[in-house]
């Protein structure tokens, strides 16, 4: 009897773990997939001096109970985010200013002194990119698979590790070598094909076949999304860096003409103006439009299959599932249309 209890306790724990991981994965998926183009301010905590003060303000805002409190907090958060980018830009320019003062004017010196990894943080802030979220998704998926298949850990590890390593080398892509960028993904896919990918070639059997197939499909979608998303981000980083170099060139030209640079605000204005124009030029290209469309498609496909997978796991729970609700909504919609039509006919007849 006791052994039976242990068995069910263990079973219960394993189920709880699956649900916990599922919930966590969902959260991370949403975090990663909803991030496209959305600013997430305040993540790079630059204002160390003001952290405690900011916390105090936010706490005091939290205590206030008004209808627009969400917007007020959001706005303050964005103001912090805006200042964050402004200050980060200042930090990046600082060594350049010093070089100008100490070593004299030399555009190549400026280029050497620029810090792409730091600059990337500004672009992450602007575009809401969050590479950590993608790493977390990978880790969560691995965790989920581990739990789901119990013994699949060693099977998954090579692929997940390859993905993680690739993602960690993000800043290096800023140097602008698409070929190295692609080779990293080739490595990642090779790792995938040699491990999880093998399952695609083996006919699945048993009652969990549908789950396994969908799981593999979801992983495949995730791989496509990660690849597309990275390629998209790479495009944005390289464009950002090109804009940054244009700003440096403009400053160098100004200095060579003996023009006065009044203060940091002037650099900031120049940076905004040049960056905006450079990005606009990119956005107008067919390549960018296509890439954006592909990232979107990859993200929504991954989302769709992931939710289907969730449904499969929740099927036996006493809750209404998404697809069931969709059917219900469809029925209500059609009934309403019919009733409206009949009401109209009745009105016309009685008029």
């Amino acid at each position, binding site marked *: 009897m006791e052994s039976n209890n242990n068995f069910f306790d263990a079973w219960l724990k394993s189920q709880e773990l699956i649900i916990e991981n599922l919930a966590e994965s969902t959260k991370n998926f949403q975090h990663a997939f909803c991030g496209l183009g959305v600013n997430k301010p305040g993540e790079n905590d630059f204002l160390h001096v003001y952290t405690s003060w900011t916390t105090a303000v936010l706490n005091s805002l939290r205590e206030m109970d008004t209808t627009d409190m969400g*917007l007020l907090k959001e*706005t303050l958060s964005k103001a912090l985010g805006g200042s964050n980018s402004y200050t980060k830009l200042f930090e990046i320019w600082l060594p350049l200013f010093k070089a100008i003062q100490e070593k004299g004017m030399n555009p190549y010196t400026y280029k050497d002194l620029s810090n792409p990894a730091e600059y990337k943080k500004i672009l992450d802030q602007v*575009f809401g990119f969050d590479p950590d979220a993608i790493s977390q998704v990978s880790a969560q998926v691995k965790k989920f698979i581990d739990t789901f298949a119990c013994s699949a850990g060693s099977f998954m590890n090579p692929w997940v590790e390859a993905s993680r390593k690739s993602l960690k080398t993000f800043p290096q892509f800023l140097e602008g070598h698409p070929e190295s960028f692609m080779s990293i993904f080739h490595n990642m896919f090779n790792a995938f094909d040699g491990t999880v990918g093998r399952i695609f070639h083996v006919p699945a059997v048993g009652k969990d076949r549908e789950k396994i197939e969908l799981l593999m499909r979801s992983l495949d979608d995730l791989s496509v999304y990660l690849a597309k998303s990275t390629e998209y981000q790479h495009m944005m980083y390289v464009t950002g860096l090109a804009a940054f170099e244009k700003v440096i060139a403009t400053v160098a030209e100004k200095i060579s003409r*003996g023009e006065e640079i009044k203060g940091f605000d002037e650099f900031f204005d120049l940076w905004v103006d040049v960056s905006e124009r450079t990005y606009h030029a990119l*956005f107008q290209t067919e390549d960018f439009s296509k890439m*954006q*469309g592909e990232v979107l*498609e990859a993200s929504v496909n991954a989302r*769709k299959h992931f939710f289907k997978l969730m449904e499969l796991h929740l099927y036996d729970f006493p809750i209404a599932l998404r697809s069931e609700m969709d059917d219900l909504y469809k029925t209500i*919609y059609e009934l309403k249309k019919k009733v409206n039509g009949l009401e109209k006919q009745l009105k016309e007849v009685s008029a």
Partner: protein
Amino acid sequence: MNSPYDTFAMKHMVRELSELSMKLIKGAETLSGIDEIDVGTAPKELVYEEDKLKLYHYKPEGKVTCRVPVLIVYAMVNRQYMLDLQPDRSIVRNLLQHGLDLYIIDWGYPTKADMYMTMDDYINGYLNNCVDFIRQASKKEKINIMGICQGGTFSGIYSALYPEKVKNLITLVAPFDFATNDGLLFRWAKHMNVDALVDAYRIIPGDFLNSGFLMLMPISLNVRKYVDMLDIMGDREKLLNFLRMEKWIFDSPGQAGECLRQFIKDCYQGNKLVKGELKVGDKLVDLKDITMPLLNIYASADHLVPPAATKPLNDLVGTADKTLYEFKGGHIGVFVGSKSQKELSPAIAAWLHERDGEGPLKAKPVVKKSGARHANQEEKDRRIKPQSARINNKVIPKKKKTK
């Protein structure tokens, strides 16, 4: 000659940075003193509702001098209170003061229960029901429609399908010719797999659409705007106006998937409206059937709906009384810019007053900019009393007051 490098005085830069931080602190204090961001404050009455849609009737400000009521149809991607964002910059208040009788549609916030709603449901259903309600309440065969942005496209479609119910049509920054690539949204939409998007989300989140709008000017809208905001954060009134705009920008309802699917596929990708191939429900839309007077307003610096998408309407309609009005400014400036209040609203009111008579109207030539001139002064003292009514068994609350 001084060395140019001396101009990089570190102390100045540190001062700039320190000033920025001080503004932030001061601004946070101002922010914490704001309780409510009030928008859409012109008094109005809820007169009709159906599902999530609400139809409001504005209280007149002074005498109603235009006999035919105006139905304002705003886009579904943002909220209609943009037309009454702040009391001193409100198209609604301005038009009311010019003697117009105004109704406005609030489309509401669709939930998953609305995911199957189509353009047919919105145009042949909701919009048509609102028009019928106003016709019945005002005892007018025809009413005026003023459609804005996507709401303008829908109003144009509606007017082509039901010309017998529309006396005058006004379109503001409304896209009709989607073939253009002048606007980034038009270019990007052509590569969007809208089927995959709708199948995955059912109700397309407002945040998703917002992310697209922010991408049009990513540095200005994500960084510059908030750095500039620090300059006005110490001034409560200026900050409130900034917050009102922020509230509007991020108050984005989700979009019913099926409706958006058709709008993107048939309009943005297929340009069927211009080709005469768009079907809404079982009705084929022919813009030539827009036979009532048309005032088509476009913004010369509109980056969301470029002039190339709005202006062609005048060449596609069947009416000879068509006016093309150029507003010198951007998409948002049309609603809250000072020129909008001083020039555009009076021009709209004048155009409607000129066409408020019951008799046939003379054809007017297409002009670049309409002059603001009040006509039909004899109608000035006539006033339409708001009425309650009951239509299609939908409950219309009586005397329900809202902000």
